[in-house]
C-alpha cells in the first residue's frame, strides 16, 4: 500500500485497513480481499466491495429484533416511544386537531421554509423553554433555529461549535444517550466524559460530577440533560443544579442542554425547564436542543429547535447567520409539517391548555407504572433495593441489570430492552408489569 498512490484498489485497501482498526463489524471475506492491480469495477466485483455490513443501531435495533420475535408475550421496552395502557402508540388529540386545521386550510402552501425554519415555531419554542418573560428573549439575545428533532438540533449546534468555538472538547455524562458521542464526534468535536451515575446508589455521583467538571479545561463544552436523564432517569436536585451552574460559570464552561422531555418528566412544563432557566438567568451563554418527539408525540415528524443564548443581540444575529451555513449544505431547510403542528398548538390558548392536560396524563401514567413495577418486585421479594425505580424520573429506568441478565430476559421472557439495563417505562402497562417483574425476578435470582 503506497501512500502516494490513488488507484481505486489502493484506496479500498486503505479504507479497509482503517475500517478494520476501528470497527467490530463482521466482514464479508469474499469481497474484502478483492483488490488486485487490475481491479476496478467488473461484473464480479463491486466498487463498494470493501464496505462491511454495519451492525444495527443498538437502540433502534432493539425494535428490529422485537419485530422479528413471534412470541405473544413479547414486550418492547427499547425505544423511548410512549405507549398507552393498551400498549398502543398515541397521537395526542390536540395534535390531530391541529393537523385537521392545517390540512383543511386551503390557503396553506408547501413552499420552502427559510433555512432557519418556521418563524412562529422558533419564537414559540424559545418562549416554551426559556419562559415567555425571559429577559434573554426580550433583549433579542437568543437565536432559535428549527432543526430535525433533538438529534438534528444537537448536530447543528455541535457543527457550529466545531467551526466557530475555540474549545472543541465536549464533556458528556456517564452514561448518556447512545447516540450522543456519535453526533458530537461526527460534527468534529472531541468527546470526554464526566462522572454522573453511581451504580452503588443507582443515583447521582454528585461529587464525581463536580470533580470532573472542576478539572475540565476552561471554556470546554458540557452536555447537560435538562431533565429526565436518558438512560438513567437520575436528575440533579435544584440545589445541585445551582452548584453545577456556579462551578461551570466560574470555569467558563459552555453549557449545551439536551431538552427532550420538557413537561414529560414531572408533568409540568415550567418545572422541567428550571435547570435551563437558572443558567439563562445569570446572563450567561448556552446552547439548548429541544425536541417535540415525546412531549407532543411527534416522533416521526422530526420537530425540534436549537437555541443559542448569546451575550448580545448583535452576537445572536451573527451566530444565526452562521447556523444557516451549517444547515444549508446538510438539508437546505427543515420540514414544515411537524413544526406547523407545534406552532398551531403553542399559539392557541385553548389548544395549549389541552396539550398540558394530555402531557400530564402521559407523565402520570409513567409515574404510576414506576410505582406498579416497584410494588410488583416488592411483593415478589425480589432481592435488592428497587427504590430507584420510583426515585428516577422520566421515560426511562436504569434498572441496574447487567447485559447477561438482559440477554437472559430477552431469551427467556421475550423482554426487549437495551443491553445497559435501560427500560422504557412508557412501554409498560398494568397488564404487562407482572410479566416484567417475573422476568427481573428470574434474572436476578437465577444461578449464574
Amino acid at each position, binding site marked *: 500500500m503506497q501512500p502516494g498512490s*490513488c488507484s*481505486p484498489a489502493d*484506496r479500498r485497501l486503505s*479504507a479497509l485497513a482503517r475500517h478494520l482498526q476501528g470497527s467490530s463489524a463482521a466482514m*464479508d471475506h469474499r*469481497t474484502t480481499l478483492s483488490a488486485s492491480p487490475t481491479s476496478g*469495477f467488473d*461484473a464480479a466485483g*463491486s*466498487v*463498494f*466491495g*470493501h*464496505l*462491511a455490513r*454495519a451492525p444495527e*443501531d443498538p437502540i*433502534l435495533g432493539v425494535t428490529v429484533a422485537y419485530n422479528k420475535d413471534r412470541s405473544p408475550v413479547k414486550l418492547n421496552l427499547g425505544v423511548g416511544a410512549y405507549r398507552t395502557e393498551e400498549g398502543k*402508540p398515541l397521537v395526542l388529540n390536540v395534535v390531530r386537531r391541529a*393537523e*385537521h386545521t392545517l*390540512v383543511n386550510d386551503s390557503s396553506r402552501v*408547501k*413552499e420552502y*421554509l427559510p433555512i432557519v425554519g418556521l418563524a412562529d415555531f422558533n419564537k414559540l419554542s424559545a418562549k416554551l423553554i426559556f419562559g415567555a418573560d425571559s429577559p434573554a428573549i426580550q433583549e433579542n439575545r437568543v437565536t432559535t433555529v428549527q432543526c*430535525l*428533532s433533538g*438529534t*438534528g438540533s444537537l*448536530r447543528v449546534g455541535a457543527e457550529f461549535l466545531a467551526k466557530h*468555538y475555540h474549545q472543541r472538547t465536549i464533556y458528556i455524562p456517564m452514561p448518556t444517550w447512545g*447516540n450522543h458521542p*456519535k*453526533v458530537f464526534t*461526527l460534527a468534529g468535536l472531541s468527546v470526554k466524559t464526566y462522572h454522573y451515575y453511581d451504580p452503588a446508589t443507582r443515583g447521582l455521583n454528585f461529587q464525581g460530577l463536580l470533580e470532573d467538571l472542576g478539572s475540565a479545561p*476552561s*471554556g470546554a463544552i458540557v452536555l447537560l440533560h435538562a431533565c429526565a436523564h436518558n438512560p438513567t432517569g437520575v436528575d440533579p436536585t435544584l440545589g445541585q443544579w445551582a452548584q453545577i451552574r*456556579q462551578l461551570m*460559570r*466560574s470555569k*467558563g464552561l459552555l453549557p449545551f442542554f439536551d431538552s427532550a422531555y420538557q413537561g414529560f418528566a414531572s408533568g409540568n412544563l415550567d418545572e422541567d425547564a428550571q435547570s435551563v432557566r437558572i443558567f439563562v438567568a*445569570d*446572563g450567561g*451563554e448556552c446552547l439548548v436542543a429541544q425536541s417535540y*418527539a415525546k412531549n407532543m408525540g*411527534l416522533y*416521526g415528524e*422530526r420537530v425540534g429547535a436549537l437555541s443559542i443564548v*448569546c*451575550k448580545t443581540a448583535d*452576537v445572536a*444575529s*451573527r451566530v444565526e*447567520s452562521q447556523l*444557516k451555513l451549517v444547515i444549508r*449544505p*446538510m438539508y*437546505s*431547510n427543515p*420540514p414544515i409539517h411537524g413544526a406547523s403542528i407545534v406552532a398551531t398548538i403553542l399559539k392557541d390558548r385553548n389548544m395549549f391548555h389541552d396539550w398540558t392536560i394530555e402531557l400530564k396524563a402521559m407523565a402520570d401514567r409513567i409515574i404510576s407504572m414506576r410505582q406498579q413495577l416497584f410494588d410488583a418486585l416488592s411483593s415478589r421479594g425480589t432481592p435488592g433495593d428497587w427504590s430507584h425505580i420510583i426515585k428516577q424520573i422520566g421515560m426511562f429506568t436504569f434498572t441496574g441489570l447487567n447485559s447477561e441478565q438482559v440477554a437472559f430476559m430477552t431469551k427467556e421472557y421475550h423482554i426487549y430492552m437495551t443491553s445497559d439495563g435501560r427500560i422504557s417505562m412508557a412501554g409498560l402497562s398494568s397488564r404487562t408489569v407482572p410479566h416484567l417483574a417475573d422476568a427481573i425476578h428470574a434474572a436476578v435470582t437465577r444461578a449464574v
Partner: protein
Amino acid sequence: MIPFSSYLYTMGNFDLQILVIFIYFLQSLGRITMAVAVDVSRFESITMAPPDPILGVSEAFRADTHEMKLNLGVGAYRTEELRPYVLSVVKKAENLMLERGEFKEYLPIEGLAAFNKATAELLLGADNPIIKQQRIATVQGLSGTGSLRLAAALIERYFPGAKVLISSPTWGNHKNIFNDARVPWSEYRYYDPKTVGLDFDGMISDIKAAPEGSFILLHGCAHNPTGIDPTPEQWEVIADVIQEKNHIPFFDVAYQGFASGSLDADASSVRLFAARGMELLVAQSYSKNLGLYAERIGAINVVCSSADAAARVKSQLKRIARPMYSNPPIHGARIVANVVGDPALFNEWKEEMELMAGRIKSVRQKLYDSICAKDKSEKDWSYILKQIGMFSFTGLNRAQSDNMTDKWHVYMTKDGRISLAGLSAAKCEYLADAIIDSFYNVS
C-alpha cells in the same frame, strides 16, 4: 486564581452595574485598560455570514415594492397567476392520511419502506431487473440536499481521497455540500458561453483527465442552472468515458417528470447507465415534481453489482444518517407512497406533472417569441428553446443580471439564471424588454 471574566458570571445584575460604573470611572482616569473585557461573548469573533445567493434572492424580492417586480430566483413552480401550487393529488393524499388517522412513530433510520420501494421503481422502472435482483440500496433522505449529503459522507468515509467532479457551472449548493462533508471536488467544463450550449469536448476531456475512480456528478435531466442537457448520443459517450476510467457516476435527479413531462423520458440517462451494468449513485428529490418543497422528501440510491453489496451499503448509509437526524420525517414520505401506490392518484399525478411541464415549455416558447419580435438584430436566441426544465441560462453576465434587478426589478441569480417556473405568459413581453435592454446596453 479565578479569571476576572468568569467571576462576573457569578455576580448578580446589581453588582454588575456597580462594577461597570466603577470600571468606566477607572478607565476615565486612565488607570486601567480593560485587559479582560466585561461580559464578552464566547462568540464575539464570529462574523456575519453572507446571505445564501439563491435563497437570498427571494428575500430581496419580498422587500421590493415595485409593481412590476418579478421573482425568477428560486426554482419553485408558480401557476400562470404566479401563485404557489399544491398538487391536487397531494391534497387528496393528505386527506386520506388524515382520515386514516395514522400514528406518528419513528420511521426506521432508512425511512418509510413503502416510499423507498416506490422511489426506486420510479427511478429505474418497476420491472427493472436491478430491483428484482435487490441490487439497489435506497435510503430516504431530506430531499435532494439531504440525499446528496448522505452520499457525500459515504464517499468521504469509504473512498477517502476520491474526488467528485461537478459541472461548471452547477447548482450553487453542491460545492457547499461536498465542502462540509470534506470531500474534495473539482470542475469539468460544461457550459459554453459562446454557444450558450454544452461544451461537450471540454466535458469529455475533463472527465477523462480525472484520476481513475472519481465520482462524476451528473444532472439526470434539466441541468441546473443552465437547462442544457446532453443528447442521448452524448450520454452514451459520457457513459463510455466513465466506464473507461472506472469512474463512478453520481446522478442528481431533482426534476424527474418535471423536465419533459414524462417520468420515464426524464429517467432515461440514469437508466442508460444502469442498463450497462454500471454501479451508480442517484440522489432524488420530490420537491418540484410533486411540489413537496417544504416537506423535504427525497432519497439516495446506490446501484451495486450485487445484492450483498447493496445491503452493506444501505447499512452504512444508516450509520451516517443516525448521528445526523436519527430518522427522516414521515409526512412527505407518506404522501409520495400514497400517490405512487394508488393507480388513480398516480395517473392524476402524471397529468398534473404534464400540465406543470407544459406551462413551462409554453412560457419558454412565448419568451423566445417575444424576444425575437423585439430584437431586430441577427442574434440567435434559439438556445432558449433548446434548454429544458425549470431554468434558463439567459447568457447574461453578472453586470447584466444586476441591471435586470436594479432597473427592471427582475430578480434572478447572478449567473444569468432565470426560473421559468416563476414566469407567467402575461409577463413575457416585459421580461423580453428587460433581457434585451440588459444584453445590449450593459456590459
